[in-house]
Structures are given as structure tokens and as C-alpha cells.
């Protein structure tokens, strides 16, 4: 339900930008460049770029699973157009507070509207940077505004995507997950 909503919003943005769904189907095929779209290095480069430029910290992919915290924050940014799906940023509360602090120069004691706003922007920039790595995506895939969820012990379930990238990253002593979900490619 949630992903359907952000996908619809992203598609609407793509259409407002002057590209209707039919035009995208007729003029652009991402199927030929699916390997480029699903290249995991694009996601790593996007995360490193966003964290270095906006937060001023080095961020590296790691193989171990993220540290589980009961309270977490998730930002979902939908893709619409030649690719439908979503970019999902998820972190525990500690990493979310650190991200917000680095972005704003303020300290936070708990997850509030500003922290959720910051995490939404990080999700937005990650989605934009990731799709910008593939020219066809940059031009023909719209982004929704971020939806941000916070709470305890919840799961985000996605039904059998066409492909999915799921990476864990670490900065300073905090970790987070980024997932690219592609459930349709034209």
C-alpha cells in the first residue's frame, strides 16, 4: 500500500515533467541496460557521495548485518516512469539522530519532526544520486516526495520485486541500510 502510494506520486511527477507513460515506453528501454541499473557499485558510490558532501563523513559498505535497535526510522522515496519501485533508507534511532545532527549542526535527544525531515532528505538525495548514475533513469524516472516512518519493531514487506539491492553501510560508529526495490522496468 505504502509503496503503491509513493510509486503513484513519482509517476505523476514524471508525467508533470512532460513525459507520459506511453512516451516512456515508446522511446526508452531500460531492459537493454538492466545490468547497469542493477550494478551494486552505483548504490555504493551514491551513498558515499551523499554522506561525504552533505554530512562531511566517510561512509563505507560493510558485510555484517546492521545493529538491531527497537526504534528505527525509514524513508521511502518512490520511482515512477521507466522504472517503478522505491529507494528505502532505514536506520536505528542512534544513526538517525547522528545523521540529523551532522546535517543541521544541532543535537537531538529523540526522533522528532526535524530528524524525520533530515532522514527524508537523505532518502531523497540517495534516490536522486542513484538514478543519476544511469542516463536513461536520470531523464525518464521521477521521484516521489519522501514518506518517512518511525516506530518500534515494524517490518517493510515488498512482494517479489524484479530485482533488489540491499546494502548495509557504516559511518562513524553507526550503521544503516539502503534498499533499491525495482518492481517494474520498461
Amino acid at each position, binding site marked *: 500500500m505504502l509503496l503503491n502510494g509513493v510509486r503513484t506520486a513519482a509517476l505523476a511527477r514524471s508525467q508533470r515533467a512532460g513525459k507520459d507513460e506511453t512516451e516512456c515506453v515508446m522511446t526508452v528501454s531500460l531492459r537493454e541496460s538492466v545490468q547497469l541499473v542493477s550494478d551494486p557499485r552505483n548504490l555504493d558510490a551514491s551513498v558515499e*557521495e*551523499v554522506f561525504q*558532501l552533505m554530512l562531511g563523513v566517510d561512509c563505507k559498505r560493510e558485510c555484517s548485518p546492521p545493529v538491531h535497535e527497537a526504534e528505527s526510522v525509514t524513508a521511502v522515496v518512490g520511482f515512477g516512469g521507466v522504472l517503478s519501485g522505491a529507494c528505502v533508507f532505514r536506520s536505528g534511532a542512534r544513526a538517525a539522530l547522528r545523521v540529523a545532527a551532522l546535517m543541521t549542526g544541532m543535537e537531538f535527544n529523540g526522533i522528532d519532526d526535524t530528524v524525520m525531515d533530515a532522514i527524508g*532528505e537523505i532518502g531523497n538525495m540517495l534516490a*536522486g*544520486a542513484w538514478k*543519476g548514475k544511469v542516463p536513461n533513469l536520470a*531523464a525518464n524516472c521521477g521521484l516521489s*516526495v519522501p514518506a518517512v516512518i518511525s516506530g518500534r519493531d515494524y517490518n517493510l514487506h515488498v512482494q517479489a520485486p524484479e530485482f533488489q539491492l540491499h546494502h548495509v553501510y557504516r559511518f562513524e560508529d553507526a550503521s544503516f541500510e539502503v534498499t533499491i526495490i525495482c518492481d517494474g522496468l520498461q
Partner: protein
Amino acid sequence: MREIRTLIVDDSSVMRKIVERSLRQAGLDSLVVFEAGSGTDGLDVLRAEAVDLIVSDINMPSMDGLEFLRQIRAQNLAPGVPVVMITTESSEEHVKQAILSGAQGYIRKPFTAEQVKERVLPLVNAA
């Protein structure tokens, strides 16, 4: 140093603060900032205040940045005031649309203060 009255339009309050900080780091110390969380609110600010610079996001709910730009021109608000778009959208098509809608500058997120300086200062100095 002359005062630079700047309207920053972004649905994210965090991004508005980051843009303001980047403008100050770029050398615009004497900023007077007006903030708006949407294109609609931005138009209200322009009806009430004279500004020297407009910096706007594109992806915003209700009225996006491109429509905001078109409305500025259609309603003849802030004539001659430079507009810079700061957005995650980076394709040539998006840049073209922004320029056609009336923007003079375009900065892709994520950005550095140096990029803001390079693209905004010449516009402010020329205005």
C-alpha cells in the same frame, strides 16, 4: 556590504537551513532569509516582500518548483530577480525545463558550498 534578501523554498526545513548555511559559507554574510515550505507559500512571500534572490527546490508537494517558477513569471512577481533551482533531479531534460521556466541557475543535490558559490554569486553580483 549590501543586504541580500533571499527567499528559500523547500518543503524540507532541514534543507532550507542547509541552503542558508551554504549561502553564508559562499560569502553572502548579509543575508536576510525568507523561508517557504511550498511554491504556494513562496508566492505569498513574493507578494509581500521584495527579494534579491530566489532559491527553490523542484520536488515539492502541492505546487512543485517548476510551477512555482511559471507562476512567478505569469504573475510578474520579482521581475529581474535571479532564481536558482536546487534539486535531486539532474538530467539535461530537467535542467532545460528549469531554464525554460525562468531559472538562471541549477544546482544538483548533494552539493558543496563551493558549488553554491560558483553558481549563485555571479547571479547576485550581476543583479
